[in-house]
């Protein structure tokens, strides 16, 4: 009897399930991204216009069509001469906080610097795998961790305090090229997970990150008033002062804003999924110098 039922069910399946074309509706088509190339692997063809300030300057002066502005990848905002903006205030605030807390609780700086109190250049190596903690740490996660461990406070990721300190640490690496290794171990695993998330279709609008930031997608096209640009080289200027938002925005807050617009559930800053995505995004900025503070 059971066997007969089994055959009947299988037969039913054969009828009900038609031969579907092999499309995975859960993901956006993938692109070849070589993590070894870093920012030079940019698939948008625009890297030549923003690979350094002189290229940006040249392209900005040559191009006359505003619809080409996206090709500068926003880097034209970094070369403005009189560039005083609230991002600088945030850096000052962050510096004040770090020095104040180092004064009250010696060891805060050493914790931020993973043992060294010299904080210059550390931001260029984040996110990294912390063997002692056994997890991939972003810079903001390090600030949160050290605030808890040394100060008995909680500078939560996504909070203004955390953002200001993170931006201050990043500003100490201003001009240094991002160098993270994603070729082995937990970092490679995080990279691969982040890559999967980049192509995962989410939300009511059924978009993936890739729907706006890969060739053939909306990238380079108008999305009403905006033109999505390449994801390469983007991480180098975060956290950034966002003039439309009026605050220093950390990368995870930017992710949240994107996901809200995709009508997907935004996750909290510091979520493991965001960490993986940050590893993937940062590897796409490998070799590109950090700009902090910046304005967008």
């Amino acid at each position, binding site marked *: 009897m059971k066997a007969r039922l089994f055959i009947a069910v299988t037969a039913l399946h054969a009828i009900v399930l038609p031969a579907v074309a092999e499309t995975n509706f859960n993901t956006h088509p993938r692109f070849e991204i070589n993590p070894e190339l870093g920012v030079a692997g940019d698939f948008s063809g625009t890297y030549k216009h923003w690979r350094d300030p002189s290229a940006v300057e040249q392209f900005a002066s040559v191009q006359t069509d505003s619809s080409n502005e996206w090709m500068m990848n926003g880097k034209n905002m970094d070369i403005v001469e009189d560039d005083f903006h609230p991002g600088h205030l945030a850096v000052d605030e962050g510096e004040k906080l770090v020095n104040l807390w180092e004064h009250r609780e010696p060891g805060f700086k050493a914790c931020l610097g993973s043992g060294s109190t010299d904080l210059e250049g550390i931001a260029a190596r984040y996110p990294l795998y912390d063997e002692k903690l056994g997890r991939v740490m972003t810079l903001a996660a390090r600030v949160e961790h050290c605030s808890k461990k040394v100060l008995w406070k909680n500078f939560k990721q996504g909070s203004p305090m955390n953002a200001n300190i993170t931006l201050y640490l990043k500003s100490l690496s201003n001009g240094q090229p991002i160098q993270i290794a994603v070729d082995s171990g937990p970092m490679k695993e995080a990279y691969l997970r982040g890559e999967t998330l980049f192509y*995962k279709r*989410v939300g009511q609008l059924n978009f993936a990150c890739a729907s706006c930031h890969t060739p053939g997608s909306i990238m380079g096209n*108008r999305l*009403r008033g905006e033109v999505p640009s390449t994801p390469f080289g983007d991480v180098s200027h975060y956290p950034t002062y966002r003039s439309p938002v009026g605050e220093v925005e950390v990368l995870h807050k930017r992710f949240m804003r994107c996901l809200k617009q995709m*009508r997907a*559930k935004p996750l909290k800053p510091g979520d*493991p999924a965001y960490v993986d995505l940050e590893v993937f995004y940062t590897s796409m900025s490998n070799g590109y110098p950090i700009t902090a503070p910046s304005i967008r």
Partner: protein
Amino acid sequence: MKKILIAALAVTLSACGTVQPVKNKSASVSPMKFPCLSYSLACGNIPVRKPVKKELEGELSGNIDEGRKIAFTKKRGNCLACHRMKGGTQPGSRGPDLTAYGSLKRSDEETYALVYDMRWRVPDTLMPPMGTNQILTEQEIRDVVAFLQSSK
């Protein structure tokens, strides 16, 4: 007295409950019902809804003006984000130009099915499945189709 109070309360409550349903407004659906990036939340495991080829039942009976409003409003159809449309300002450029869609002489049935869910024809499309993902109601899609067919 108590009874009167309870009765009054009941009346008030029922009045609250029967606030006129806003006609032709897309019901907002919780984002938790759709896939998300999370590893821990339930939405992280939700698969994308399967493509649906929706049949148009009966007459189209769409409202052109309403359709235009839906197509131009960010929180509703927002077709303008990607398409040029008749009368729309600051349109997007990724999707096909729809300013003269009505001249293409495509049937209401086909247009309706494509706005409802484009994926049955173009599996890798960027266009959100307006019907399948409950972005627009069936009547709203009828309105949008009427607006498209009137664009000449």
